[in-house]
């Protein structure tokens, strides 16, 4: 077991790569009551086209990674959720574009809960009958998202930005696409993506690391796995131009919603370079659009934006984009003002004081987020998948200069890579 101490943060990470390929990370939190464990596979909604072990190329139905996540809870002779309840744990799972995570939190019975987590995710049990029954439940989940204007405006923006890359499909799929899922397609995906070598186990909270690592080693040593497969994902080449400049959709809302996105050129960055780009872009966004920026204050005072105005950046190896926007009485005006605001900022540059303040803010907010075991658990794994260390965020942030931020601002905001998504009510009365 390898130990890394992050002195400035007062955090320690224990890690070990098991013989079956599973990477295990333990982050004990002094004085905390609960422990949170996440078992994650590098498999999400974008992994819909890949090659099987025998070389055969397959396209699986949209939404299958999420469907598989639901079905992992079904077992032959027990109910996983009831079992967690018996041990006093609260369990959950989620599927994103590029990963599926199974998790629980508990304040007692960590050994039993951890073994249960490892066992249920590593023992699939699918039947045709239970697959059919799940279609009703997931159908209602999809319908619920269809009524959610914040989700709709976000997904439509991805559809506007991406021509080919499968981030433009709904994570849960559609009622039509999930109708094609069978137990066999589920097993096919499971066998391809749930090998321990494609997974990470992370435990954060109140425990002794030596003891917990031994539990995990023993659990894994008692199971047999096929040899480590080579996973070949078949992603389409995404052009740099957007699919559509603008998508508009109708749903009952109080005020129209408008999001503006800039698509990153796919350049395959990983590790330190990816982390630095991510943090630099987030600094750019905060300086340009944060609550203390001139633009935010001007738009707020004019009533063009509300407190819902927000922005974020997402940068992965295969895709990346920035998003900004919120509720507004005049979506087209907001989109035009954002575009113009960026152009002016690109010309004028950033002053040193604004830059230093944004950096201080970012450091403070990052340290604050380490109060949350959920945050650590979820972020730590994402960072690992990209070849990074969550606890190295502060030194990387400190290394960023004003020149980096200015250069990034010019590089990222390219008008041809911008798209707009709008959701508004059908009629003003609504």
């Amino acid at each position, binding site marked *: 077991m390898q130990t890394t101490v992050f002195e400035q943060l007062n955090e320690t990470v224990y890690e070990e790569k098991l013989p079956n390929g599973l990477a295990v990370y333990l982050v004990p939190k002094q004085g905390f009551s609960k422990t949170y464990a996440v078992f994650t596979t590098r498999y999400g909604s974008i992994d819909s086209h890949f090659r099987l072990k025998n070389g055969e190329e397959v396209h699986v139905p949209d939404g299958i990674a999420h469907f598989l996540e639901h079905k992992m809870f079904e077992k032959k002779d027990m109910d996983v959720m009831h079992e967690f*309840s018996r041990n006093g744990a609260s369990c959950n799972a989620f599927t994103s574009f590029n990963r599926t995570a199974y998790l629980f939190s508990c304040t007692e019975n960590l050994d039993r809960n951890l073994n249960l987590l490892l066992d249920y995710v590593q023992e699939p049990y699918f039947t045709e009958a239970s697959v059919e029954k799940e279609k009703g439940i997931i159908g209602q989940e999809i319908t619920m998202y269809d009524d959610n204007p914040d989700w709709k405006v976000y997904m439509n923006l991805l559809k506007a930005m991406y021509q080919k890359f499968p981030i433009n499909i709904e994570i849960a799929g559609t009622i039509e696409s999930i109708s094609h899922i069978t137990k066999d397609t589920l097993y096919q995906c499971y066998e391809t993506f749930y090998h321990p070598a494609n997974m990470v186990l992370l435990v954060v909270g109140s425990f002794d690391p030596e003891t917990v690592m031994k539990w995990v080693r023993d659990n894994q040593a008692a199971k047999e796995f096929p040899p480590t497969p080579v996973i070949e994902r078949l992603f389409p080449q995404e052009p740099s131009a957007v699919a559509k400049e603008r998508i508009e959709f109708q749903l009952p809302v109080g005020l129209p919603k408008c999001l503006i996105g800039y698509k990153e050129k796919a350049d395959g960055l990983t590790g330190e370079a990816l982390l630095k780009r991510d943090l630099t872009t987030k600094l750019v966004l905060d300086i340009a659009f944060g609550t203390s920026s001139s633009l935010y*204050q001007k738009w707020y005072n004019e009533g063009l934006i509300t407190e819902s105005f927000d922005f974020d950046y997402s940068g992965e190896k295969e895709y990346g984009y920035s998003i900004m926007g919120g509720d507004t009485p005049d979506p087209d005006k907001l989109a035009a003002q954002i575009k113009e605001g960026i152009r002016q900022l690109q010309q004028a540059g950033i002053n040193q004081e604004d830059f230093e303040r944004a950096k201080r803010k970012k450091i*403070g907010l990052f340290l604050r987020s380490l109060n949350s075991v959920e945050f650590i658990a979820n972020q730590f794994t994402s960072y690992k998948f990209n070849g990074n260390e969550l606890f190295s965020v502060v030194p990387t942030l400190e290394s960023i200069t004003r020149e980096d931020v200015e250069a990034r601002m010019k590089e990222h905001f390219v008008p041809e890579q911008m798209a707009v998504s709008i959701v508004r009510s059908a009629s003003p009365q609504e």
Partner: protein
Amino acid sequence: MSESVKEISFHTTALNGINVHIMPTAKFKTTTIVTMIEQELSEETVTKTALLAMVMKRATARFPETKQLREHLDFLYGAIFDVDVVKKGERQILQIYMEVLNEKYLSQENALLESAIRFVGDVLSRPYLEGNAFAEKYVAQEKETLRKRIESLIDDKMKYANQRVTEEMCQGEPFALLAQGRTKDLAGISGESLYAHFQELMSHSPIDIFVVGDVEQKEVEAAIGKFVQLDRKDVKQIGPTKAKKQVAEERVVIDRLEVNQAKLNIGCRTQISYADEDYPALLVYNGVLGGFPHSKLFVNVREKASLAYYAVSRLESHKGIMMMMSGIDVKNFDRAVTIIKEQLESMKQGNVGQEELEQTKATLSNQFRELLDSARMMIDFAYNGVISGRKRHLEELLAQINGITVEDLKRVAAQVAIDTIYLLRDKKGDA
């Protein structure tokens, strides 16, 4: 490894008419400072207080422009500052939330804690005024923001349905009001009347300040004494929330909107609230019925009948209301209501197995122990004790939960009655 704390325990002192509650703990990297200002939930003041929350965020005497104020907060390593209103039973609580990094995580010398308390003091006692009024420009802008916020309730169909059923159930009771108030009141509020309301609250409303973090009690008290200076006198006693109301008859209310999924919300009266002896039994009752994935609603509405993705029940502990919620296809309305009623009936019959009772006690206890890892949730727990007049201790509550029997649940069930069945559905089809 240091022992984790097992109890939510604040040291309370009275400082210049304000109750100051401090909990020193080294486990967080920040210090959380929450000020709670309590008043009755009433038609006369609900909108004013909601608007006040927004205007208080805009400026102080030291930072007359919002940009300066936000820059100052960012400079304090991204200090979190928010002012909001929440409804707890028939009380409207004005909350001033502040969270600042603990200095020990910084290499340079920074008096962040003192700066944060000074800032809270600015907001409470040194507002930005023009004459004897809040600045008209901020009042006018925030009226618009508040109006938009109230109108945007419709964006989240779950919240919207919840508010609608509450309005229908509690017609004529203060609890029907939204914490953010009513758009129709906005026009009648001026910068002057708003400032008069502010002064009224700062002088006469009960005020509690909670501080959680790696702090010295004496140091915090000294800073609050220095920076938070209010003209406190004749502090009001706010009466208890009325949780007891017999249901005359079960009502059905249907609203129509352009939605794909229908929202079914069923509001029940339990006659039991936070201060009551039977409150722990009510917690377990709600847990067995719909609090968890092993609960009756989840198992029967979702797992067995495949009617819904979510099917839960939630308590409003001060008002004694239990809300059952589910998202369904409208064609399954009758079936879902029948299944849900069967679960209530099954609770009445005491049809609760040892297994589900134990699961509920274990998961409920886990939920309460998890509060210990969040400063905000610990403050909320302690504050529920303040406003209900019954201070609960975590260890004691856990022991009470553990002692609940099926007989206790039957006693609770006998008092639970459906008040209103509410359906938010699409505009297609027949009524």
